[in-house]
């Protein structure tokens, strides 16, 4: 007799039958978190409503089009273009707006309901959890895209369809959706409602602008727009590849940032994401060697993201994280300096990024004769702007529970203050005098960069930018010394066999 029969008798046979069916299906080959998320996600009203609304609206549009302009008529060409516009606007709302917005709750729900602990006790690590949640949302987006195909076939018979361009637009939109979903899922690990609210606001803002961009680019031919790119030249192909790479990188990196925030201290996510970041920078240079302004913008985006993340990572990890580094022998010190988890190594990693950026900048000035000799000042001010919040958090907000949230809040505050100073300077015609405020408000230097570089102020802009950047870096370096001492202690503990009791007080670090 089964033990449970002592308590409540009569197990229900249908449940057994259901379990047998459930356990032998195709889902056994998929990731557990993907299966769970799809089971939940496909039953959620948000998805069901979005799916049904999309189908009904597209159905109505096609029926009206066919009725108003018979297939083969001259009128049908114009109607066909309009139908395409509707397709893309409706699809964009569903997969570029609604699906990413759903991602904003992905990890936050688990954190709020205390179910994340139970997940982390299984064999799923933080990356598999985050990636699985993202993949489930992207799979649902894919389902929405696939459900549009029958209407595209109908639209083909109306004539005037740019098949390749429209399929490419669909693909681009899907990649954009995947990227935005990644960003949203990554941000969902942030418990701060303010930050998640800002991300939601940004997505809702794109609700207003994005469909218009797509509609206009499709209906007017929109030459040069990413949605009607023809990929006829090598230059266009490399630009498009760089854009796809950038979107994929952003999606990936934000997912990694989310995974880092929920990972236990015994898990190291930093090394991998920093190496991927460096590889992406290399790929960008390879794809866009002769498009320097575009390369610089992409570079700026990637480097900024890497720097912000590296400087706002929590510095709490266990001795087990050091083990793989110990296998590198003497090189472990160098690798650890840049790739260990936490903002202390992130500081050196940011320094490395600043160095490579300067090198790129000098190359552009000396070899390609692009840019100006004031560009290094701009980049220094840019890094100082990113170092400033980290310095404030490490010196004055040590008890902050979530370093990333604290960093973002300080960064936003510093940008707002700088903007206020800039506006005051503009209205009182004293922007040039305000150069003295740049060391405490580096973002002000960026905002007034054009004014400064065009006048005699440019002579003192470079030394001010260098000094500001170095001062913040040194302030952070001083603050990180305790952390490095702890890492050395952990390293020595690992060197002793068998491992003794680990005594690492990282309370305040977290």
């Amino acid at each position, binding site marked *: 007799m*089964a*033990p*449970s029969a*002592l*308590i*409540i008798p*009569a*197990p*229900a046979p*249908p*449940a*057994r039958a*259901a*379990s*047998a069916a*459930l*356990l*032998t299906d195709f889902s*056994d080959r998929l990731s*557990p*978190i993907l*299966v*769970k998320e799809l*089971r*939940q996600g496909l*039953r*959620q009203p948000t998805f069901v409503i979005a799916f049904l609304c999309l189908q009904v609206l597209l159905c109505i549009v096609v029926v009206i089009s066919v009725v108003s302009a018979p297939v083969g008529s001259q009128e049908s060409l114009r109607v066909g273009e309009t139908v395409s516009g509707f397709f893309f606007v409706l699809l964009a709302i569903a997969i570029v707006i609604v699906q990413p917005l759903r991602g904003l709750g992905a990890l936050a729900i688990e954190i709020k309901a*205390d*179910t994340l*602990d*139970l*997940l982390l*006790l*299984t*064999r*799923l690590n933080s990356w598999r959890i985050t990636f699985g949640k993202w993949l489930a949302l992207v799979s649902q987006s894919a389902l929405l895209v696939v459900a549009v195909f029958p209407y595209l076939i109908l639209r083909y018979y109306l004539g005037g369809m740019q098949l390749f361009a429209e399929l490419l637009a669909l693909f681009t939109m899907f990649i954009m959706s995947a990227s935005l979903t990644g960003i949203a899922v990554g941000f969902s690990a942030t418990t701060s409602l303010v930050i998640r609210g800002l991300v939601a606001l940004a997505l809702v803002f794109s609700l207003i602008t994005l469909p218009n961009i797509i509609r206009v680019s499709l209906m007017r031919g929109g030459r040069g727009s990413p949605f009607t790119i023809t990929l006829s030249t090598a230059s266009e192909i490399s630009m498009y590849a760089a854009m796809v790479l950038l979107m994929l990188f952003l999606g990936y990196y934000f997912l990694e940032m989310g995974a880092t925030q929920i990972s*236990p201290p*015994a898990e190291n996510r930093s090394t991998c994401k920093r190496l991927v970041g460096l590889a992406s920078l290399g790929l960008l240079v390879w794809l866009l060697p002769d498009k320097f302004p575009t390369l610089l913008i992409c570079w700026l985006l990637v480097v900024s993201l890497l720097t912000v993340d590296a400087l706002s990572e929590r510095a*709490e990890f*266990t*001795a*087990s994280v050091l083990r793989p580094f110990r296998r590198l022998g003497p090189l472990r010190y160098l690798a650890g300096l840049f790739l260990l988890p936490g903002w202390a190594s992130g500081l050196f990693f940011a320094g490395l990024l600043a160095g490579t950026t300067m090198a790129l900048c000098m190359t552009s000035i000396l070899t390609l004769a692009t840019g100006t000799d004031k560009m290094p000042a701009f980049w220094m001010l840019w890094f100082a702007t990113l170092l400033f919040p980290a310095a404030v958090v*490490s010196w004055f907000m*040590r*008890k902050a529970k979530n370093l990333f949230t604290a960093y973002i809040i300080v960064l936003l505050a510093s940008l707002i203050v700088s903007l206020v100073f800039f506006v005051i300077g503009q209205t009182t015609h004293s922007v040039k005098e305000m150069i003295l405020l740049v060391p405490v408000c580096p973002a002000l230097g960026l905002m007034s960069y054009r004014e400064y570089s065009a006048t005699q102020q440019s002579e003192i802009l470079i030394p001010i930018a260098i000094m500001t950047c170095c001062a913040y870096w040194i302030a952070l370096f001083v*603050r990180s*010394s*305790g*952390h490095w*001492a702890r890492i050395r202690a952990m390293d020595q503990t690992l060197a002793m066999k068998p*491992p003794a*009791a*680990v*005594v*690492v*007080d*990282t*309370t*305040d*670090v977290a």
Partner: protein
Amino acid sequence: MSAAIRVHNLHRHFGPLKAVDGISFEIPPGSVCGFIGSNGAGKTTTMRILATLDQPSAGLVEISGVDVVQEPWKVRHRVGWMPDHFNVYDHMSVLEFMDFHARALGFRGKERQHRLQEVMEFTDLMPIAERPANKLSKGMTQRLCLGRALVHDPDVLVLDEPAAGLDPKARVELKHLIRLLAAEGKTLLISSHILSELGEMCDSLIFINHGKIIHDGDAESLMRHTDVTGGIYLNVQLASNPEALGAWCQMQPNVELVEASKQGGRLRLAADDPAQAAALLARMVKDGLSVMEFHREQRNLEDAFMAMVGRPDMQPPPLPQQPETMD
């Protein structure tokens, strides 16, 4: 034989707060240990460290000889964790919930089918397999939570307040399941506020207060012995005017009304001296109390716990100054 759970000089600090302050204990394999303490005593923090969900500030914690800090992945295969606060997912049935956890724990195909069948029958979840997991009663949810903790057949089970909020029937069922698990040779560490139930179920009891262990031993010896001050407990029932007992006790030296009841109450006499007890009874009669019943009573776990927690040396230490730490 090595201990199933070994904790040595464990510390966990949250800033200036010492949630766990240098505790040490060992639990042998196959035994059931009760972990008792008031709210904020450090029970959940200790249990979370045992389950690898939190990191110790200092000290050594081992599960079946494996360090929870050095090798958390190995420990997770050996520990089943049942939290005090358990939430389940929306849009998911009980079976799907269990199935997800079985998948996440690495069970595949027939193996998963068999394991789920075993666990769901053991925890009596089969009749409710198709019901939405988030619409269950508290008792059923606790069974689901226990089932989830048992999926990977762990040697050690850490159950944080498993009986909290359960009705009497669900409590009896849970107790029965715990007995069955103990009979299977599992090691269980259970925290609960219902001390009498722990006394029945557990081979040993650990009392924790303000992050320090104040008792580590078996329940019987705890109840058999007089308390640390050498007092004894007396049950007194009055035929009329039971309220008078409280007022009368306040006038007497070395006597304290521990618990008032409908017809009298439980008194604690400061010394384990039959002569003093007899004298006390004589004084009661002399002072006009209508004593109907007067007998010495075995101390229960609540008394033992309160006596220990109430000791002056068990009062919370003052909070230290905020340390200037470098990170």
